[in-house]
Each structure stands twice: as C-alpha cells, then as structure tokens.
C-alpha cells in the first residue's frame, strides 16, 4: 500500500488521519494506532504540525484543571447540607 503524505507544513491534516491524531494528542491512542499516528505525523508536514499544536492545546487545557474552588467555597461544600440530608433522607430546606 502506498501511503501519501503532505510534505507542505501548511493546510489541514490528511482527512483519514484526523481522528487518530486527536487520539494521539490526548494520549488515548495505544499500540499500533499510536505508532501509526506518530509515524505518519513524523513524515507528513501538515499532520505533524496539526499534532504538535493539538497536543499543546490539550496540555494547556489540562493545566486549566488547576483552577480550584476557593477554600471558603470548598469548606462550605464540605460542610454542606448533604451530610445531614443524607442521614435524614429528606429534602434540604432552602
């Protein structure tokens, strides 16, 4: 089978590769799928560029997870009405 690659760095990724590149970027591609995605991206300018940037974006999104509730909000939630409501098995009063 002859594999085709885009040698230019500009433009969208190869159509048949996009799903696999998404999975390679977020780490959900495993085994042969992962190998094939990275191997293709290494030879294909557009897919390589797409994979690099998508990986960077996902990395930044994961950093956003560091956004935590304030200690006050956490404390309120930790001491919330769910504790007693669960025991009493009744609707909390607002």
């Amino acid at each position, binding site marked *: 089978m002859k594999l085709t690659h885009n040698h230019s760095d*500009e*433009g*969208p990724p190869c159509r048949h590769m*996009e*799903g696999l590149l*998404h999975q390679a970027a*977020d780490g*959900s591609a495993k085994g042969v799928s992962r190998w094939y995605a990275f191997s293709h991206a290494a030879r294909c300018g*557009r897919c390589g*560029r*797409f994979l*690099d*940037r*998508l990986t*960077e*974006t*996902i990395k*930044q*999104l*994961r*950093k*956003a*997870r*560091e*956004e*935590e*509730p304030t200690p006050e*909000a*956490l404390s*309120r*939630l*930790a001491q*919330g*009405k*769910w*504790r007693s*409501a*669960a025991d009493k*098995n009744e609707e*909390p009063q607002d």
Partner: protein
Amino acid sequence: MKLFQQTSAKPEFEVVALAELPVLYRVAKRLTLSDADAEDLVGQALYLAAKAWTKFDGRHVRSWLIQILRNEHLTVIRKRSSRPETPIQDVVEPQEDGFWEEVAWRAVGQDLLREVDLLPEDYRMAITLCDVEEMPYDEAAEALGIPAPTLRTRLFRARRILRAKLAHLSPETQP
C-alpha cells in the same frame, strides 16, 4: 476512577464526596458558568448522590457523580426555562495556515477556559471531561449519558471549534 477495585468494601460516601469535590466544582462551573450556581449545583448533586449511595454499584464513581450533577443542572435549566445556547452553525471553521503560531503563545489556561465557556454545552462538557479532567472516553460518555463514539465526535468537533475561536484571538484580527 476505579475507587473500589482495591478494596472489597464500598467506602463511606463522605470519603468519596470530599475526594471528588474539586472535580465536581470545576465541572459544575463549566456547566453553569457561575461560581455561585456551581456551588449550589454541587451541593444539591451531593445531596442526591448521598441519598442514592446505598443503591449505587460502585463502578465509575466520578462518572456517576457527574451524571447526577448534569441531570440536576438540566432540571434547574428546565425550571428556569432554558437559557440561549451558542448556535454551533455560527462558529466559523478556521484556516489552518499560520494561526497556530498565535495560539502557541496565547493558549494559556485561563484564556482557553474562557473560550471553552463560549462553546455549546454538549461540546463544552466533552472538552471539560476529556481534556481538562482527563477522563477516559468511556467514562466521560457514561457521565454524559451518550455512546462513546458520540462523545468522540463531539470532542473532536469541540477541539475544531475551539481552534476556530482561538484563531479570532490572533493579533492580526485585533483592531
């Protein structure tokens, strides 16, 4: 999160609830787009979860809690009569050429989150669960009550839309 595989006994609800609080809050924040509403939503979801805890089989506790959170959110929305969503068709697909260079230095977490918040809810939740919270596709799909292939489709489209949004932040498009 496979919390129960290492021990035979189901942990106390309190232990699970306290461990999952930050995740639930972040997901609630992405759902409600408001600190106060997120707090209310998490509180109510925990109350419902605590009531249902004895019936829960213990599999994928995070998915289960997020499912409760999302159902409660939908209930609240229905009560308030639904707020307008960003129509997906209004989002312009990006030109790939060149804009990633701009994204590379602009794509800091908070900027990205602001753009995520502008996505339609289905896409916003796919990004939040899979990319921000790093949940496996199958658990995220379970949390959202959709098949995994649907989740993947939404996630890939969401990333595409996010790229389009980020493209608009390019300095070349600024006045």
